[in-house]
């Protein structure tokens, strides 16, 4: 049967079709406007770098395909005389770089980072992960959490910028298990690799605007929310809190805590003497019964109920949590991957800082907590 065209066809249009069409339109609209839903405030945009070739501590403008020639990067002036490092970093809007060598991802670590009260738009995070199976898994986990925070999270939670590096050398040990990791004969290689990882992370991310560097291990799962402000308040070149670990005490049948980081110490004559008899490449490690150094360990200086802002001078520091003035690193203080005065990694760092005229300080009553596996 011949049927007239046009009106009849229109008459046949089902409202369902129109609804579908509208839905499709909204879908397309969403993708046209969509990306800008995770947009930043104008203040943050104004502070962003103009070109992807820029200090990684700042976000940059995504390359827009304008069709024409891409303009060469501009000439940028940085006046490092104006970068303040003060006891009141929030008021002076000082940039903090939190650096974390990461082998495993702990959700507790990330949650703890997010709850820090220091303004997140002044915090840059830097991670370095090894290129092995464990590292890949940790990277995936980390990127998932980063995407959640930076793309869809509230703007006050979003960090200024985040750098993820993959290590260019293999970790010396196949496993990062607690027992294996702490065996003395494995320590040297492990700490040398750790030192290289820390240096790689530090010197590629420090940039020209950082005021403070906070070294925070990936297994630090609990800190006071005002960690950065509290440590910076002391206005010391190197400030180390005391690192503890919560565990289930089988004797008293309840949760308890014990000292964890033994690399924060004051030197002893015994240690000096042992060191003087060592070969030039030997290193002196802390926390092993085979090598009694009689150094005064900050881990045991904790006194319950005393002032959390009590200071003690230190000769060796651990890297679990450590706030460093950026100038110390800029002067060249790094983590020796070789025997430096018979010290290595963070302990060697404290010594090198001292050679450059910077003294380390410990806060025995200010606690941060290590993950317990």
């Amino acid at each position: 049967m011949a049927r007239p065209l046009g009106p009849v066809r229109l008459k046949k249009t089902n409202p369902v079709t129109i609804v579908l069409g509208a839905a499709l339109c909204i879908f397309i609209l969403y993708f046209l406007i969509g990306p800008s839903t995770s947009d930043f405030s104008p203040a943050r945009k104004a502070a962003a770098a103009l070109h992807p070739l820029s200090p990684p501590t700042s976000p940059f403008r995504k390359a827009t395909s304008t069709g024409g020639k891409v303009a060469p990067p501009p000439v940028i002036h940085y006046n490092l005389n104006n970068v303040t490092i003060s006891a009141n970093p929030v008021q002076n809007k000082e940039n903090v770089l939190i650096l974390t060598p990461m082998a495993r991802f702990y959700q507790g670590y990330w949650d703890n980072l997010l709850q820090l009260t220091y303004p997140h738009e002044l915090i840059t995070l830097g991670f370095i992960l090894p290129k092995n199976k464990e590292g890949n898994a940790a990277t995936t986990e980390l990127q998932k959490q980063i995407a959640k925070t930076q793309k869809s999270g509230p703007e006050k939670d979003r960090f200024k910028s985040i750098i993820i590096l993959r290590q260019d050398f293999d970790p010396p040990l196949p496993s990062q298990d607690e027992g294996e990791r702490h065996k003395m004969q494995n320590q040297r290689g492990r700490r040398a690799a750790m030192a290289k990882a820390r240096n790689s992370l530090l010197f590629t991310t420090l940039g020209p605007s950082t005021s403070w560097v906070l070294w925070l291990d990936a297994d630090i799962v609990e800190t006071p929310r005002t960690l950065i402000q509290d440590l910076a308040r002391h206005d010391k070149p190197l400030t180390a809190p005391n690192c503890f670990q919560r565990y289930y005490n089988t004797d008293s049948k309840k949760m308890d805590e014990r000292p964890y980081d033994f690399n924060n110490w004051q030197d002893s004559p015994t240690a000096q003497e042992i060191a003087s008899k060592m070969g030039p490449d030997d290193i002196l490690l802390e926390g092993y019964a085979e090598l009694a150094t009689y150094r005064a360990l900050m881990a045991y200086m904790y006194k319950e109920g005393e002032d959390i802002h009590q200071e003690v001078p230190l000769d060796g520091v651990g890297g679990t949590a450590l706030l460093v003035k950026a100038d110390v690193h800029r002067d060249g203080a790094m983590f020796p991957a070789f025997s430096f005065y018979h010290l290595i990694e963070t302990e060697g760092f404290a010594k090198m800082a001292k050679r450059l005229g910077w003294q380390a300080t410990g806060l025995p009553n200010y606690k941060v907590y290590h993950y317990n596996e």
Partner: protein
Amino acid sequence: MLPFTSSSGSKAVPRHHVSGYSNGYPRGGNTFEISPHRFQPRGTTPASRRRRRLLLRIGIAVAICGLFALFVWPRGSIISLVSLGLLSRGDDFQLETVRYYDLSNVQGTARGWEREERILLCVPLRDAEPHLAMFFSHLRNFTYPHHLIDLAFLVSDSKDRTLEVLSNNLEAIQADPDDLQHYGEISIIEKDFGQKVNQDVESRHGFAAQASRRKLMAQARNWLLSAALRPYHSWVYWRDVDVETAPFTILEDLMRHNKDVIVPNVWRPLPDWLGGEQPYDLNSWQESETALALADTLDEDAVIVEGYAEYATWRPHLAYLRDPYGDPDMEMEIDGVGGVSILAKAKVFRHGVHFPAFSFEKHAETEGFGKMARRMDFSVVGLPHYTIWHLYEPSVDDIKHMEQMEQEKLAREAEEKEKAEKAKKMKESFGDATSQWEKDKTEMQNIALQEKKKKPDTPGGSTEGKASKDKANTPAPGSQPAGKESPNGPAKVVARNEKKGGVA
């Protein structure tokens, strides 16, 4: 059927039907009527009316949504949506806050320019304005792809216009019409360290000032590097601003060796009176037993500096091993390096090697850098026969010597000038006389001839002759032609003789 009829009354046909269809045509009923003479609007069927209303509602909803969107995403996005992104404005951009880098991609290889490996070119500057023009001519000539080179300058404690000249030059490069001239990231970093040591050549190279000066230099280098090194750099090239001559291909030439740290030989040209050329950079050397023994005797903060009599180290220096005709690719293992031109893999710096601003194994700055690199098992190599030339800046002694030489030269010149003048005068007074005589003779002969011809009609001749006779008291040289004396001729000759007589 029944309830309907009962409600509309008893009449069989409704009234309005009668009025509406009273044109003689029968109403309805006749289903088989095909007459075209009647217009009947197809009318507003409930279905189409519903559709129209639906469209209207959708339209209103879209408009509200649009307004809402405009309210939520204030600027840009809606306009770019309407214009399909063709009218996007300059300030409409997205932020990227996450960067991911795999450091195993930036290890540095022998043919970096093919793998697009980025180089960080570091230049520490202090009061360097006079050298900048020369430096920028080098910069324009590098054959390594410019877009792969990131430039970083540290301007510290400068009292001249270094900063201004530097940024003007850099902006000129980035605005160059030739795209190949454009460099990558360019950072100018300002930081004053409170320089106490003077920067002039004498105080710069004085022995006493060396240790603290080298530590300050090291500090400046570390600040520059830590502010400028990025995760995407494969190489770091340190270059002093006062290099006068270097091959344009130096980056590729050094890179080809694929060493962790590599330096060329550095010499400087000298004026001829100082021998023409001289080794300049004595900081590239191989360690010696003597120096190690010396190091053990020094205290913790002492710094051994090379090239001073106070520390006789007996080290083989890269500079002294140069053979102008030697193979430029020849390598030599060294322990200390000089800072004039260092190419190093970025991983050396990433792993923590830096310029010690303290005494590291009794060395500081670039020498300490070489030592530390060796300590971390990196290869440190010098090229004894591949030479670049440092600018010659005369030392105070040289300047004194040159001033003395200049004075001597001036004295010599004055003397020579005087001599020349004397000789000229001598020549004028004696040597030239014969030709003059010849000339005068011929002239006189001519005049004599003319006079002979005109003799009868020259009445004034006697007076002239008298005047000339009055003046001719001084004795003329013996070759005076006697015979054909004319009134005009002798006058000239006498005048000349008079003058010469004064000298004699």
